[in-house]
C-alpha cells in the first residue's frame, strides 16, 4: 500500500485517532464517538471507516486488540482497536498543525476565537 495514504492525514483518520484517545473501541463505537465529537457532522460509513482503520493499522497508528477480557463465548465477536503511542503522536502533531493554522487565521483577522 502506498505510504502517502495518510499524508496528509485525512480528517476521517484524524477523527478516528481522536475517538480512540480515551478508550479502546470497536467499529461501531468509533463511529458513534466520531459522530459525537463532531456534533453529528461526520457519520463514518462502514467503507470509509474500515478503509481508514486498515490504513491506520498498517501504519501502526492503531492496533487491533486480540483479546477482550469481558468477551463471552457466543457473544458477537467484535474487534477492538487501540491507539498506539505512534498514533497519539500523529494526532498530536496534526492538532498542533491545526492550532498553528488557527493562529495564522487569527493574525489575518479572518477568525476570532479563544487562544488555542
Amino acid at each position, binding site marked *: *500500500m*502506498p505510504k502517502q*495514504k495518510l499524508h496528509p492525514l485525512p480528517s476521517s483518520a484524524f477523527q478516528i485517532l481522536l475517538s480512540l484517545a*480515551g478508550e479502546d473501541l470497536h*467499529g*461501531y463505537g468509533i*463511529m458513534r464517538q466520531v459522530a459525537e465529537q463532531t456534533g453529528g457532522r461526520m*457519520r*463514518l*460509513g*462502514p*467503507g*470509509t*471507516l*474500515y*478503509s481508514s*482503520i*486498515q*490504513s491506520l*493499522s*498498517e501504519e*501502526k497508528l492503531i*492496533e*487491533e*486488540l*486480540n*483479546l*477482550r*477480557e469481558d468477551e463471552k463465548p457466543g457473544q*458477537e465477536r*467484535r*474487534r477492538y482497536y*487501540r491507539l*498506539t*503511542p*505512534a498514533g*497519539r*503522536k500523529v494526532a498530536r502533531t496534526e492538532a498542533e498543525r491545526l492550532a498553528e493554522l488557527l493562529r495564522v487565521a487569527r493574525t489575518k483577522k479572518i477568525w476570532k476565537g479563544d487562544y488555542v
Partner: protein
Amino acid sequence: MSERIYAWLLRLYPSCFRAEYGEEALQLFRDRCRQERGFFAAMRLWLDLLADLAISVPRQYRHVQPAPIGASAGRRPDGTPSFCVLEGHSPRLGSLLLGAVLSAAAASIPIGHIANYRPFRSALAAHSPGYARWPPTSFRMTQAAGGSGQSGSRDFPSKPMVAQLASGFLQPPGAQPQSQEAPRAGARPAVERGNVGAPERQRVIHAIVANIKQHYVDPMVAEKMAAMLLAHETAGDYNAITDGAALAALLTRQLRDASQDPHLDVVYSQAPLHPPGLTSERLARYRVAMEQQNCAFEKVEVLPHNIGYLKLNSFPEPSICGAAATAAMASLNDADAIIFDLRDNRGGYPEMVMQIAAHLFDHPEYMYNPRENTTERSWTASPVAGARLADKPVYVLTSGRTFSGAEHFSYDLKMLKRATIVGERTGGAAHSGVFHRIDDHFGMGIPEARAINPFGKSDWEGTGVEPDVKVKAADALITAERLVQTKLKKK
C-alpha cells in the same frame, strides 16, 4: 432484507478488503439498523451508505493497485502477513503450481550461492526458552563490543501498547533469562561473525534515518542525527566496517553523541530477530506458559501473623492474567500487611503493574513510568471495588535481578511512601526506547515518550531502586516479616 442488500453491495469492494473487514462492515450496518429506527433514520442510513460506497470503493481500488509491487501488502493487525489479489477469484490451481515450481527454482539459486544465507527460523524459535525475548543474546554482545560503558545486564524496554509485544517481557518467568549464559563477544569465533556488505550497510543506515525521523521524540534532534549519519555515509566512514556488531556499536555511539540521549540503541543480532507484533501463535504459547505457571504468581499465601505474601515473578499480560491477578489480590484482602516478593521478577506489562498497584490506594495515584507518555493511564484505577488493602503496610522484596516493570512497581511505591523496599538494589533497567526491527539482523531502540517524573529528574535507569532496608536478597523475606511484626505490634 436490507442487510442482504448491503451484503451484496459489499461485493463491490476488493476481495482483500472484504476478507479483512467485510464481516465488520456488516456488523456495523446491523448495529446502525438496530439503533436508528424509523423512516427518516433509515433514509439517512441508506444515504450515508451510498455516499460511503461512492467514496470508499474507488479509493480501495486505487490503493489495492500498487500492492503486488510492494510484494507483501502490509500486515494484518495480528501479525500474519496478508496478500491482496486484484481479482475477486482466487488463482487457478494450475497457476499456483506453476508459480510454486518457478519460485522454488528461482530461490534455489541464491540459496546455493550465498554462504551466509540463513533462513528465518521460526521453528527454532518455538523451542528456544526465551522465544519471545528480544533482543537475543547478541544485544548484550553488541553492548560489550561497543564498549558503551553501560551495564551489560540491561534488559530492553517494552511498550506493550505499541505492537512491540515482541519484547522480552513475554518471556515466561520460569525460563531463565538468556543473558546469564550469553557468551562474551570476544569468545566468538571470527568465522561466525556476521559480515555486512555495502548494500545492507546502506539499507540499514537509511532505515535508521527514516525510523529516527518518524519516531524520535524530538524532531529537531532527529533531523540533526539523520544529517550526521548521512554525512558520515557520504564521507565513506562506514565503508571499512563489515562486521554487523561493530557497525551497530558505531552507529549507537554516533547517535548518542549527536543526541546526548543514552536510550538510543542500534542492535545487531546474529540470530534472526523476530518480526514485530505478537502473532497469534506466540500469544497462544504465552497463554499456555502463563496457565502452567499460574500467571507468574509463584506463591500467594498468608504467612503467620496474618501477613499476606505474594511471590510474583513477572507482571503478566493483563488480558490473559487479569483475572488471576484479581483473584490473588482478593485472597489477601484480609491480611494485616502485604509482602510483594519481586526478587525474581524480570518485568512485564505496565498495565499489570498498574492493576496490582491500584489495590493499594483508596484514590487514583500517579505512577511514573519512564516508558510512556503521561496520560490518564498513568493514574491507578483506585479505589478497587471490594479491596481493603489501601491502609495496610506494604513491603516489597527486591534483588539485583529485580528488573524493569518490577522496578517500575518498586520505584513508584517507594517514592509514594506506600511501600518499604527490603533487599538489594534493583537491576536498573528503565529504558524508554521502543524497539524497531530493521531487518532480520538489525533493529534499533528509539525513545518515543517523555513522561513526567514528579519525584525528580533521575529514575532507576542505570542505578536501580535503592532499598529502604538494605539486606541480602536471601534475607529479605525474614527481615520483612520481622519489620511487619514490629509494626503491627506498635498499633
